[in-house]
């Protein structure tokens, strides 16, 4: 039960507004944890704290049992890779250059010999090999996100922190990116993914952590956590959880999480009640 990445009593506040409050989180090697919750719940802030960016006002984050902030940046960079929500590159670097930047932590080590092969594989995995000569600012939003994902893979960290990696992607690439992230977990990596699509979270996550108003509301396997009652309360909008039978190989039905829509005949009265 040794966690690769552990948050202990993390609290982050910007002035009077508390963004994270006493958050505990353990991520073990080999599992993919989906971080879900409404806007402003603190998902991105938690991911940022887990990656070592803002110093939490209280609590600490341990990577392999040692406080993140006590570890040299290069050591961290060789173990954990981070993909942020928004991919931006200041100058007209080519997609290939951007992905190759992911190899920086390995400069001067024997593993630098694999640079070209690793970069090529990462670009194939993210389906951006054909974009290699294009300059980054000319790419579409989804293509930028995939190049950023490839860069994250090229870093070869076995702790992956991905902030909404699928937000700008089409269905095919959403599935591909999460399948790749889960493959990394199966190979032993500890993976944390911030997601908005709860059906996607249910399909790919080993554990789902629900954040609301800066606190962990639930933490467990998707089938235990993603319930209509909890989601309806957390999202302040009626949510239905459907079970699609016979689609998985472990005996559990696939979860489909859908918002209840006012226009459908399902429950117009309930919506009016909730919003009134």
């Amino acid at each position, binding site marked *: 039960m040794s966690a690769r990445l552990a948050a202990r009593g993390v609290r982050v506040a910007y002035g009077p507004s508390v963004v994270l409050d006493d958050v505990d989180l353990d991520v073990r090697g080999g599992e993919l944890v989906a971080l879900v919750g409404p806007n402003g719940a603190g998902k991105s802030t938690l991911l940022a704290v887990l*990656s070592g960016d803002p110093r939490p006002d209280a609590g600490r984050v341990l990577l392999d049992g040692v406080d993140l902030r006590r570890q040299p940046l290069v050591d*961290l960079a060789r173990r954990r890779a981070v993909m*942020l929500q928004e991919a*931006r590159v200041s100058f007209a670097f080519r997609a290939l250059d951007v992905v190759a930047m992911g190899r920086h932590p390995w400069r001067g080590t024997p593993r630098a010999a694999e640079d070209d092969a690793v970069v090529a594989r990462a670009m194939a995995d993210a389906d951006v090999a*054909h974009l*290699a000569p294009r300059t980054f600012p000319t790419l579409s939003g989804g293509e930028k996100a995939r190049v950023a994902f490839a860069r994250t893979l090229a870093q070869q960290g076995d702790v992956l922190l991905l902030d909404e990696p699928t937000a700008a992607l089409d269905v095919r690439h959403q599935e591909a990116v999460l399948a790749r992230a889960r493959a990394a977990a*199966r190979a032993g990596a500890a993976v944390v993914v911030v997601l908005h699509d709860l059906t996607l979270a249910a399909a790919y996550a080993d554990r789902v952590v629900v954040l609301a108003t800066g606190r962990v509301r639930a933490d467990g396997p*998707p089938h235990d956590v993603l319930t209509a009652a909890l989601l309806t309360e957390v999202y302040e909008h009626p949510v239905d959880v459907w079970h699609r039978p016979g689609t998985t190989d472990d005996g559990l039905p696939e979860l489909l999480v859908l918002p209840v829509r006012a226009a459908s005949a399902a429950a117009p009265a309930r919506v009016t009640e909730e919003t009134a």
Partner: protein
Amino acid sequence: MSVDARAATPSATSPAPSAPSAPAAAPEAAGTVPRGPGTVPARPRAVRRVALFAGLGAALLVLAVVAAGTGQLHVPPAEVLGSVLHRLGLDVGPLPAHAHGEAALWTVRFPRVVMAVLVGAALATGGTVMQGVFGNPLAEPGVVGVSSGAAVGACLVIVTGWTFAGSWTVALLAFAGGLAATLVVYATAREAGRTEVVTLVLTGVAVNAVGGAAVAFLTFLGDTQAREQIVFWQLGSLNGTRWAYVAVVAPLVVTGLVAAVLLARRLDLLALGERPARHLGVDVERLRLVVVVVVAVLTAAAVAFCGVIAFVGLVVPHVVRMVVGPGHRVLVPASALGGATLLLGADLVARTAVPYADLPIGMLTALVGGPFFFWLIRRTRRAAGGWA
């Protein structure tokens, strides 16, 4: 417990590491298969890179020989080369035929040529590094006010006549002024790890205003001779360069250049943004401080004896970036070479455009650089979709 639910679903891609590339039948994927990264795009940029270095290097050498021979006392290129080779101990080529030719070359022309090369390289490199750390092609020591900070320091020495550090006094105070101005710009123009174009330019306006006021005050304080010196120094000129000045500027420029080359990879990563750069192991805070010092050293070297020569640091990196791409490992040395060539050419024009007159070179570069800056603003604005 295993929640590996989707692995066997026919519609989902298999989780093997190489798998999520796409269904094989996807039409747009078909054409992409044979292109491996690494083989595709390297060629054109590599060719352009070699062509640029070769072209600039050749231009610099030719310009240096021509510039050294040009002036009231004309020395043909063959004699210029012969004189240099003889000094190097090689008995090759003709010596200057004119009685004062040798003296003119070695006491007046060569120091000036070397100074133009050094100052041009310093200005262009300073601009490149500053643009890299701000992630913004409009950043330039002149535009954001570093040069005018350095100018205040230099003018202070002119007015007070201080010589506490010998011929290094001007450079030292220019460095102090430039460093102070860079720190002010850096502290005020950044917000949440990035610099808005408009904030940067307006900060430059403010810093330049204060610097201009300080120089005006010093001009007011100075005696007639100091005033005249300040006025001409501010116009920017390589006139009157002596070896003693070159001896001060050269080590500063070499130090700044070496540091800039060593910082190149980290500047590349900074283009991803500060947080991603950190995630890749770059100590961003330290990198910034080092860059601030490097920019101040290079600016001080350029400004100390030659005055404010604007826009070289803006134009050169931008043009070079368009030719060889934004990677700093190539951009920094190519910009240094480009800046040296440009300033040597500009100085030749300044000396020869009007007979028997030495035009201020700062005036020339601003004349060309001003419109370029305007064009660059328009371009950047269009790319950014407005000022935000």
